Structure formats: structure tokens, C-alpha cells
């Protein structure tokens, strides 16, 4: 059901009931007021009439008695004196219609004498003798009764047939003369005129008036069937006989001596009527007025006829107003409905007018609009965050690529050292991209380096930081710096360019394959575990330095140990020790040592796999919170550590020389000296000299052009097992590879004359690398490894 219908359904009956009740109440109240008014008025009027009648009757009685007294006081009764008395009485009492003094025939000298005076039409006095034999006054009740009981009597009303059709009543009083009842004095009162007056009065008020004699005869035209003025039969008898309750009620009412005002049905007209009566005391009659209710209440009905249409109009107006108000509610609702349709279609940009309709509607419209805007914003947010997620995902993919490219993929990483060491690296990321990495490097002088590191943070920034750290460590290690110096320099450089505030914990191990000598440096990293060949394990605790990138000028200390053949160095990140089982207990160092001790010896990968298996078994279904990185290094072959001479760090000679051919002889001497120092036999040394000479000559002749005052840098690094020569110039880079390919060692007389030098270099040296770099200098690196089994002494003998 619509709001409108509901409003109307509830409000209209309520209004109708309210108005109806109001009207009813007001009608009742006014009816009551009117009736009360009528009551008081009618009662007073009825009483007034009754009293007037009463006075008339009473005065008539007194007149009659006065006449009787006057006659009684006469000395002698003469017709003249009697007539005079009657005439005087008439002139003094205009209300009297007629009067007589009738004498008992044999009691007075007057004999049969009954003079009667009455008012003729026009007011003249008319004489009549009642002693007319046709009338014979002595037979009438009015004469007989007073003589019989000596008291005055009122006669029942009667139609005076003698003097015209006038209804009258007569008071008759006995006349005493000299102690004897001698006659009767009467006074007639004409009722017709009284009744006419009364009926006229009642008729003006829409009612009917009548009187009831003591005997129950009704006087009044309205109450007669035939238009008579008076009924013949007693009303009391009629009511007694009748079965009509209204008739009985009326009779009862009229017989009640008290005045009444009664609302009842008129037994004659059968209409609801008001009945008022009052007693005329002097004669014992009752005066009554009956008025139909509707006639009496005519003003009230007029009022009703006026008020009800007005009420109907008002109710109609209210209904119209209600419709308008409900429209003002439901029409905006239709707008809101349309708006929700817009929203459900996905059109959140539509806006409702916020300045139309009542305040609640305006506020609701504002609320709708804000809702739409909020949804739009939310959609925008979702779009943005989706785009951000996509960017983040791509970033992670890039980072993952970087990491994949960083981690060594080839095992064994140093095939030529397989009889000296076995190394394996394991990496399992926690999520897409972790912060761990490991690295294997070949170092100047024949040693190798191992790195295990954990970069703070995740994602692309961490991956770039990791790549940077890896390159720096590689660069520093490649230049032959000691582990402590590598850490110090890497830290310095990482700190300088570290806006993101990242850092990396790192463990660096420099391992000498010939001797098992190992130099460790820790930059805030987890201590490695040393697993002896017999399965015993111990924690190796290098002085833990500060993670790289945190603090400028940090210093790092090197810890040395020697791996015996079969010993394993287990390096790892905290992802291994910090992983938790279902009881939230860490895997920890103890379990790591146990796992390493229980793992099969002799194979780096098998050992790493065993440890990883132990970690996985421990963690069970628990998520892996961090990357897991593990590097296992096993020393192979050789005698016990005690048997071999302690290795020594690379010794470096570094010099800057003018780029002139005059320095070549000196360079040759220094190179030979260094090569011999490194343990190379003379022929080997000479070949190394040739290679270096070719490179340096090339630099002098081609890098700068003739006649310049430029310099180049020569670095000679000697270690137990290798000579590493680096030549750095700051001139034009050149296509080293192309130049190297110009000669392939098959000499013909027709061949071009270039490219032979570089061919020689490649022939002589184990490693030849060219790294063009216009900033840090183009660098040629030459490495010659000393064959382990070469016995320097043998060669010395030859010299």
C-alpha cells in the first residue's frame, strides 16, 4: 500500500470521527441549551397564562361572592335594586361576560325572578330573564348545587346556546338574606376568547394549547375531532380505556398538579413533542401546551444545516491538503527511487537537487548525494589500489628477476677447484621476493670468496640494494682487499647512497683452497657453524660488526680459522634459525648444529639438503616467515691443515706510470720480479712479462695517442698461488674482443700485421679481462695461476 493511501486511510477516518464527535457534541450542547431555554420560557409562559386565568377566575369568584353579599345586606329586595347591583357590577368588572342573581321562587317577595345581564356583541349590556319557562333556571345545576350545599361552585364549561355559541364557565354562589338561602348569584366567564388567545399564543410558537377541566374535558380546538371547542367525554376516561401508552402518559402528566416539561410523543399527531403544563389553581384545571420537537428545535436544525456543509467543506479541504502533503512526501520518494535505480545501474555521478522540498527531503537528498560521492570515491580508491597492487606486483617481478640474476646458478662454481672444495648454495624465498642472497667469487691470488647476506626490506628497493651490495663486495674483493677492508668500503659506499635507509647483514668468507685457511668477517650476520669431519659442530663467532649501510666509518674485524679436509662451514641467514614450529618455538642454533652434525658428510649439496629437510620437518605446516638461505662449504683433498704452510694474503704493488714507452723496461723488470715472488719459474715469469708488456704497450700506443703526458696505473698482486696484474688507463676504450680476434695463431706471410700482441697475451695468461670504463678507467686484468704441484725449488736449481 502506498504511503499516500495509508495516510488517507488513517487520517481521513480520524478526522471524520473527530469532526463528527465535535458536531454531535455541539448539537447536543446547543439542543440542551435550546431546550433549557424553551423549558424556562415555556414554563414561565404557561405559568403566566395559568396565573392570568387564575386571577380571572378568582376575581370572578370574588365578584360573584360580592354580589351575593350585597344582596344579603339589602333591607328589602326589589327588582330595581337587584338590577342596579348587577349593572354596577358589570361596569366595574370588564372581564365578566355575564351575571345573574336568581332567586328561589318562594323565598322572596320577588318570586320567580332571575335577571341576567351579559355583554352583547359590540360591548353593549344585554338583559335577559332566565325565568323564561323555556329555560327554567331552577332546573340547572349551577342553581341547584349552591342551594344544596350552601357553597360556591364552578360549573363545567358549557356552550351557551342562549347568548350565542360561546363556551363559558360559571361560578355560582348562594345568596343569604336575613338568615335564609334565597337565591344564587353567578358570574359567567367567556372561555372562547381565552382559549383563542391561548391558542394564538401557542400557535405562534408552532404549538397547540388546551386546557383540561377537573373532570377531564379538553378545551381547545386542536384536541377535538370535529372542530368543537370542548370534548364531551372525559379525557381521563378515554386514557383509561385506551391502550396507547402515550395517551396514558399524557393523562398522567396532565393530572399531576405540579407544572411539567416533558419530551414525549404526541398521542394525537404521533410526533416527538414537548409538553408543558401548569395548574390553574382557583378552578382546578390544567393548562397545557404541546409543541412538535422539530418545530421547537427549528433553530437548531437550521444551525445543523449550516454547520454540516461547512464541516464537509472543511474535511474536504483537509483531504486535499493531505493529498498535497502526501504528494510532497511521495514525489521526492519517487525521485529517490529513480536515484537508487541510477545507482544500481552503476551511475553514481547523478545528483539530486538539494534545494527542493521540505527540510527532511533536502537533507535526505544531500545524504543520497554524499552516498553517491562516497561510492564514486570508493570506486576510485579501489581502482587506484588495484593499480598500485599491479605496480607492486610488477615491481616484485622485476625484483625477482634481479634476484634470480644475482644468485649463482652453476654448481660447482669453481670446476677447477673441485678437488679442493665443494660448495653448494640453497635459497628458498618466503614470498615472491626475499631479501637474501649468496654469492661465490674468485679472488686475486687463487682464493675464493663466499657471501651470505640478508637485506632489510622486501621488493624492488631491497632487490636493488642487494644488487648494489653484491656488486660492491665483488668489486672490492676483485681488487684484492682483505675481508675487513671489503666490509669497510662496501659499508661506506652503501651508506652514502642509501636514501631508503636499507641495510644488509652479511657474512663474507675468504677461503684459500690450497690450505683451507679461511678468513671471516661478519657485518651483523648470524654466526656460521663449523662441522668437523667427525660430525662435531661448533659455532664460529666472528666479532659481529654493524650491518652494511647503517653507519659511516664502521670497522670490521677478521676472524681466521682453518678448515681441515672434510670440515664443513655452514653459512646461513636468520630465516633458518628463526623459523617456528606450531608451538612457536624457534628452530635455533642448537637444532641447526644437530642437523649439520647428523647430515651426511662429504657432499655440500647433500649436507644442505639434509639441513633444509630438518628445518622443513621442524616447521611442519607453519608458514615460512623469512627467506631461507644456506651455503655449505666443504674442504676437500690435501693433507691435514697442519701439514700445509699457512697461506698469506695477497701482496699488492700499485704504481702510476707515465704513458711512455720508456717505462716498458722497468715494467718488465717489476713484473718478472713479482712473478718470481709469486713462485712462478723463470720461463713462466718471462711469459707473464711478455703479456704485461703487450698490454702496457698497447695502452701507451693506442689509449692516448703519441706525445701525450698521460699516465696509466699498474697493479701487481701476488699471492700464494697466482699473480694478478691490472692495467688501468683513462683514455679511449677500444674494442678489445675484436682486436683479440684479429690473429688466431696460424701465421701466414700474407696476414695483416696487427692483433698478434693480444693473441700472445691470451696464450700466456689464464685469465684476460677487459673492462672499459671512462670514469674509473679502462681496466685490463690478467691472471696467471701458479700450478699447485709446481715445485719452486726445482726451477731454482735450473737457474
Amino acid at each position: 500500500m502506498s504511503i499516500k493511501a495509508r495516510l488517507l486511510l488513517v487520517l481521513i477516518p480520524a478526522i471524520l470521527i473527530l469532526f463528527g464527535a465535535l458536531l454531535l457534541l455541539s448539537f447536543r450542547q446547543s439542543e440542551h441549551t435550546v431546550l433549557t431555554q424553551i423549558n424556562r420560557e415555556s414554563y414561565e409562559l404557561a405559568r403566566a397564562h395559568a396565573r392570568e386565568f387564575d386571577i380571572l377566575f378568582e376575581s370572578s369568584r370574588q365578584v360573584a361572592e360580592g354580589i351575593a353579599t350585597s344582596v344579603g345586606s339589602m333591607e328589602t329586595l326589589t327588582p330595581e335594586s337587584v338590577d342596579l347591583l348587577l349593572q354596577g357590577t358589570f361596569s366595574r368588572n370588564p372581564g365578566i361576560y355575564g351575571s345573574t342573581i336568581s332567586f328561589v321562587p318562594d323565598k322572596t317577595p320577588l318570586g320567580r325572578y332571575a335577571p341576567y345581564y351579559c355583554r352583547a356583541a359590540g360591548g353593549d349590556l344585554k338583559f335577559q330573564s332566565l325565568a323564561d319557562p323555556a329555560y327554567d333556571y331552577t332546573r340547572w345545576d349551577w342553581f341547584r348545587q349552591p342551594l344544596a350545599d350552601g357553597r360556591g361552585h364552578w360549573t363545567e364549561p358549557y356552550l351557551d346556546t342562549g347568548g350565542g355559541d360561546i363556551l363559558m364557565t360559571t361560578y355560582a354562589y348562594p345568596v343569604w338574606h336575613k338568615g335564609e338561602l334565597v337565591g344564587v348569584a353567578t358570574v359567567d366567564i367567556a372561555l372562547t376568547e381565552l382559549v383563542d388567545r391561548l391558542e394564538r399564543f401557542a400557535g405562534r410558537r408552532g404549538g397547540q394549547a388546551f386546557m383540561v377541566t377537573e373532570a377531564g374535558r379538553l378545551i381547545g380546538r386542536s384536541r377535538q375531532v370535529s372542530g368543537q371547542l370542548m370534548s364531551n367525554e372525559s379525557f381521563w376516561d378515554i386514557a383509561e380505556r385506551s391502550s396507547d401508552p402515550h395517551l396514558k402518559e399524557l393523562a398522567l402528566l396532565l393530572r399531576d398538579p405540579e407544572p411539567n416539561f416533558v419530551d414525549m410523543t404526541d398521542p394525537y399527531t404521533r410526533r416527538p413533542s414537548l409538553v408543558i403544563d401548569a395548574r390553574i389553581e382557583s378552578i382546578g384545571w390544567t393548562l397545557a401546551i404541546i409543541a412538535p420537537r422539530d418545530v421547537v428545535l427549528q433553530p437548531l436544525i437550521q444551525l445543523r444545516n449550516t454547520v454540516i456543509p461547512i464541516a464537509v467543506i472543511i474535511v474536504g479541504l483537509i483531504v486535499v491538503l493531505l493529498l498535497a502533503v502526501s504528494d510532497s512526501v511521495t514525489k521526492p520518494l519517487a525521485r529517490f527511487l529513480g536515484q537508487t535505480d541510477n545507482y544500481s545501474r552503476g551511475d553514481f555521478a547523478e545528483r539530486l537537487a538539494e534545494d527542493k522540498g521540505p527540510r527532511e527531503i533536502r537533507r535526505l537528498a544531500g545524504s543520497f548525494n554524499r552516498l553517491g560521492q562516497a561510492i564514486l570515491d570508493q570506486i576510485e580508491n579501489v581502482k587506484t589500489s588495484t593499480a598500485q597492487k599491479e605496480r607492486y606486483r610488477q615491481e616484485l617481478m622485476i625484483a625477482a628477476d634481479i634476484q634470480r640474476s644475482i644468485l649463482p646458478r652453476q654448481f660447482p662454481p669453481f670446476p677447477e677447484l673441485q678437488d679442493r672444495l665443494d660448495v653448494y648454495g640453497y635459497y628458498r624465498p618466503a614470498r615472491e621476493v626475499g631479501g637474501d642472497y649468496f654469492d661465490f667469487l674468485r679472488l686475486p691470488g687463487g682464493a675464493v670468496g663466499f657471501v651470505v647476506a640478508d637485506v632489510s626490506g622486501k621488493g624492488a628497493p631491497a632487490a636493488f640494494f642487494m644488487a648494489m651490495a653484491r656488486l660492491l663486495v665483488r668489486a672490492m674483493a676483485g681488487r684484492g682487499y682483505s675481508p675487513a677492508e671489503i666490509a669497510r668500503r662496501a659499508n661506506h659506499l652503501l651508506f652514502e647512497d642509501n636514501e631508503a635507509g636499507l641495510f644488509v647483514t652479511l657474512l663474507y668468507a675468504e677461503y684459500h683452497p690450497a690450505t683451507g685457511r679461511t678468513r671471516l668477517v661478519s657485518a651483523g650476520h648470524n654466526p656460521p657453524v663449523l662441522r668437523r669431519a667427525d660430525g662435531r659442530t661448533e659455532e664460529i663467532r666472528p666479532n659481529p660488526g654493524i650491518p652494511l649501510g647503517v653507519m659511516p666509518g664502521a670497522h670490521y674485524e677478521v676472524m681466521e680459522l682453518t678448515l681441515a679436509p672434510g670440515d664443513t662451514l655452514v653459512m646461513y641467514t636468520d630465516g633458518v634459525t628463526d623459523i617456528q614450529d606450531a608451538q612457536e618455538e624457534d628452530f635455533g642454533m642448537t637444532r641447526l648444529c644437530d642437523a649439520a652434525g647428523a647430515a651426511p658428510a662429504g657432499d655440500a649439496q647433500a649436507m644442505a639438503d639434509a639441513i633444509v629437510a630438518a628445518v622443513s620437518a621442524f616447521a611442519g605446516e607453519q608458514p615460512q616467515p623469512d627467506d631461507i638461505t644456506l651455503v655449505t662449504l666443504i674442504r676437500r683433498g690435501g693433507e691435514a691443515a697442519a701439514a700445509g704452510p699457512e697461506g698469506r694474503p695477497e701482496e699488492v704493488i700499485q704504481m702510476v706510470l707515465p704513458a711512455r714507452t720508456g717505462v716498458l723496461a722497468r715494467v718488465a723488470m717489476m713484473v718478472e720480479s713479482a712473478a718470481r715472488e709469486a713462485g712462478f719459474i723463470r720461463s713462466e715469469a718471462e711469459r707473464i712479462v711478455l703479456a704485461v708488456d703487450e698490454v702496457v704497450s698497447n695502452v701507451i700506443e693506442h689509449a692516448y695517442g703519441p706525445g701525450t703526458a698521460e699516465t696509466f696505473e699498474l697493479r701487481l698482486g701476488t699471492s700464494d698461488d697466482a699473480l694478478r696484474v691490472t692495467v688501468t688507463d683513462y683514455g679511449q676504450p677500444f674494442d678489445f674482443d675484436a682486436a683479440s680476434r684479429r690473429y688466431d695463431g696460424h701465421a701466414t706471410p700474407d696476414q695483416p700485421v696487427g692483433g698478434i700482441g693480444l693473441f700472445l697475451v691470451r696464450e700466456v695468461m689464464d685469465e684476460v679481462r677487459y673492462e672499459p670504463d671512462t670514469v674509473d678507467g679502462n681496466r685490463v686484468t690478467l691472471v696467471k695461476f701458479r700450478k699447485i704441484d709446481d715445485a719452486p725449488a726445482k726451477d731454482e736449481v735450473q737457474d
Partner: protein
Amino acid sequence: MQVEVSSIGGKWTILAPQGRVDAHTVDDFETAVRKELAAGARWLAMDLASVPYMNSAGLRVLLIALKAVRPLDGGVVLVRPQPQVQEILEISGFMNIFSVVADTDGLS
């Protein structure tokens, strides 16, 4: 660097560098060789007995000489190279295109 030049039997021109032949000295060697070629020499004997060291720059001069005399039906021989030079000749493959003799006596 000094290069001693002599001749045997009017056919062979003998050039004997005195000292290291490297980037610093090779110009002297090359100049001497070009001078003899320009003078019409077709048979060159490089006496390397006094050359303790030679690098690719020296090899280049030897190749220049060989290329110059071959169209003239001439020839280049290397005489008495010391071990270092011998080795570079071997490494570089030049032994395939040059003949080496123990001394100048056998030249005719």
C-alpha cells in the same frame, strides 16, 4: 737501439738489433729494415743473438720485412734467437713462416 747491418756474399743483408725489441725500441729496428729494403735488399738475415727480449712489435717488423721481399723472390731468415725470443716465435706461430738458422755461416 742500435742495429748493426752487414752483408754476406753480396746476397744476404744481415741486420743485428742490439738489445730489447719492444715498443720503445722497435722504431729503430723498423727504420733499419725499411732502409735496407729501400736500398734493394731482397735477402734479409735477422741476427737475434743480441736480442734478449722481443715482443709482438718486433714480430710485426719481421712480418713487414717478409711481406716486402716475398714478391721479389727474396727471403727472411732468423739467426740465433735467444730462448725468450724463441718462445715468442713458437707461441705466436711465426716459426711456421720463418726459418731459423744457428748462424750466418750457412747462408749463401
